[in-house]
């Protein structure tokens, strides 16, 4: 019985797999002059194919927005976009990189790495396979940057962290206590953001009580902040490295009985959900970071790559500071 049902299962899988066959791009069908002239078509298969290898495309609003913008742009410009979702798992991303290299149909890779150190091996493998790489949002570690065409992302230090850090420096004296709510511990952008906060506050004389890593989870931020509020009664401000964590933190602050402004919260990656909190004074400041901003810059960079132009390694996308003054205006503009 088991064996018969096993065979039925296997044939169901044959059916499922072969049903997906139609979606696959036919490689190596180039030949006529029109196809060869496709801009960016390095391997001559008549299509410009980009592999987007992402840390995630589902776990957080910003990566979701990046994918949506990327897909829309690819559809508009008739690029073939192959999406690989690492789901925050370094082993999965390693498998995907190997898969992209063995497929040998990709002209360009856009990499949003799960882990900056492991990504050094990825870009080295791509380099050996003759495939160019652009990193976005999270860069590879310094050892791998010479093998990357360029890095596209927000100006983590001055553009994203800077407004919040300057706000804090203006409003708090030495001896103030603060906590940082961060994301994934080993991910480049969170490492840079945390380092930037520390750099801004080097001479400020503030006491850093804790750094808590919340993955991509508002709930984890809520739990971490609740525990911090129990353990420390004298937190002056919270520096959240994403609104995802700011919102979890604010929820904990509210439930602990504080009033708006009792504990200052500054953040970045403005969410629609946060605008109400900004208007009500629970979050003092946040900074926009949208997929549209990133895609605008990424498209510019891809066209520079197609034209074989030499450009600066760091290509920064833009952002805007949101406070109670302009939160209502931005509430309708933000994508998530």
């Amino acid at each position, binding site marked *: 019985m088991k064996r018969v049902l096993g*065979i039925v299962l296997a044939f169901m899988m044959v059916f499922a797999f072969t049903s997906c066959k139609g979606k696959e791009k036919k490689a190596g069908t180039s030949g006529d002059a029109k196809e060869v002239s496709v801009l960016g078509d390095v391997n001559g298969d008549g299509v410009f194919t980009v592999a987007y290898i992402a840390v995630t495309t589902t776990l957080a609003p910003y990566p979701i927005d990046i994918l949506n913008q990327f897909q829309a742009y690819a559809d508009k410009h008739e690029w073939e976009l192959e999406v690989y979702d690492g789901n925050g798992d370094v082993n999965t991303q390693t498998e995907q990189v190997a898969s992209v290299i063995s497929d040998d149909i990709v002209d360009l890779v856009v990499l949003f790495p799960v882990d900056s150190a492991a990504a050094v091996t990825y870009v080295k493998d791509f380099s050996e396979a003759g495939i160019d790489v652009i990193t976005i949002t999270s860069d590879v570690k310094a050892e791998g940057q010479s093998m990357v065409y360029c890095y596209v992302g927000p100006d983590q230090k001055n553009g994203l962290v800077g407004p919040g850090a300057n706000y804090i420096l203006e409003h708090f004296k030495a001896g103030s206590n603060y906590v940082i709510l961060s994301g994934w511990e080993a991910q480049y952008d969170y490492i840079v953001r945390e380092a930037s906060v520390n750099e801004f506050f080097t001479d400020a004389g503030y006491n850093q009580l804790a750094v808590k890593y919340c993955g991509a989870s508002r709930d984890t931020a809520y739990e971490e902040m609740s525990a911090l509020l129990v353990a420390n009664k004298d937190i002056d401000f919270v520096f959240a490295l994403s609104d995802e964590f700011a919102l979890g933190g604010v929820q904990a602050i509210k439930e602990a009985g504080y009033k708006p402004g009792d504990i200052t919260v500054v953040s970045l990656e403005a969410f629609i959900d946060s605008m109400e909190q900004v208007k009500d004074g629970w979050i003092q400041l946040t900074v926009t970071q949208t997929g549209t901003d990133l895609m605008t810059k990424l498209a510019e960079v891809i066209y520079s790559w197609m034209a074989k132009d030499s450009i600066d390694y760091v290509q920064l996308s833009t952002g805007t500071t949101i406070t109670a003054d302009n939160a209502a205006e931005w509430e309708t503009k933000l994508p998530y």
Partner: protein
Amino acid sequence: MIAKLDKFKSTPVVRFFRENNSIYILILVIIAACISASPKFTRPANIINLTQSIGTYGILAIGLTFIFLVGGIDLSLAYQVALDGTLFVLMCNSIGFFPALLITLVLGCCIGYMNGTIVTRLKIPSLIGTLAVMTSLKGLVLILNNDSSGRAVEATLFGERLSHFYNIKLFGFLTPSHIICIIFLVALGMFLKYKRDGINMYVVGGNPEAGLFSGINNDRLTRMAFTIGGFCASFCSILVVMRMNTSTYNMGDNLDIIAICSVVVGGVKMQGGKGNMAMCIMGVATIQIINNVMTKLGMRTAMQALITGIVVILVLILDKITSNIKANNA
């Protein structure tokens, strides 16, 4: 109903499948489906990548097979891999490759032995005991991956020799992960088949009371199984590190799920007493082939996880049906 089933089972086609392990046929059909679905599947580079993954994760699954055989489970395997990998990298950077390798393997055995001791001496169910160990190991891994101020350790890269070693190809296709996995399969397969302790492990998992009455030291063999599991986890961690040329705090994530799913799909009984190396590696191959072709077809990770989960559930349902039929027949 049972009479009809018996008649059906005696037909030539079903008899053929009964006489040949269904997993072999299943895997052949899946491979045929993969070739049909994606021409990219059969590219030599992909086959090498795929079999490297089977070799790397297979070693972890081999260790888990031993634990399953004695009726246990080890939920700490993922973080054993992460801890062993992190320590291996840190030690490689300080004391060199061979001492680091040796210490990592010994550490793997020690963690496995500790798990076995928790289960046998403290009489804590392996599910709970190893869950607690997993939590502790997770904390330890995070501590090791941070410097004193709580920031992520900067450079864990220790040169390129190890990743080159991982990708060395003998005869154009045979890589170290293939060779190591084959050695593990043959050596531990022979242990299970020909050595008294290996044979007795089936008794420990299948009928522990009978084992006790036969003078088998169930606890010793359980500890041995967990130790082998820890040893295999440490070897797997070294291969994962070699592949990425670095260690990360989350390098073990999902590896335990992959190993458990693979071993279950291969037909190794979680309740203990049934399984062998062939079943284990065929299960790993099945899961890896399915994952590989889903990646080739551009399926999102969420969909891949869903399908892999469904496959495992279906296999478990089939297993349950078979057990019920056997019980009814008896």
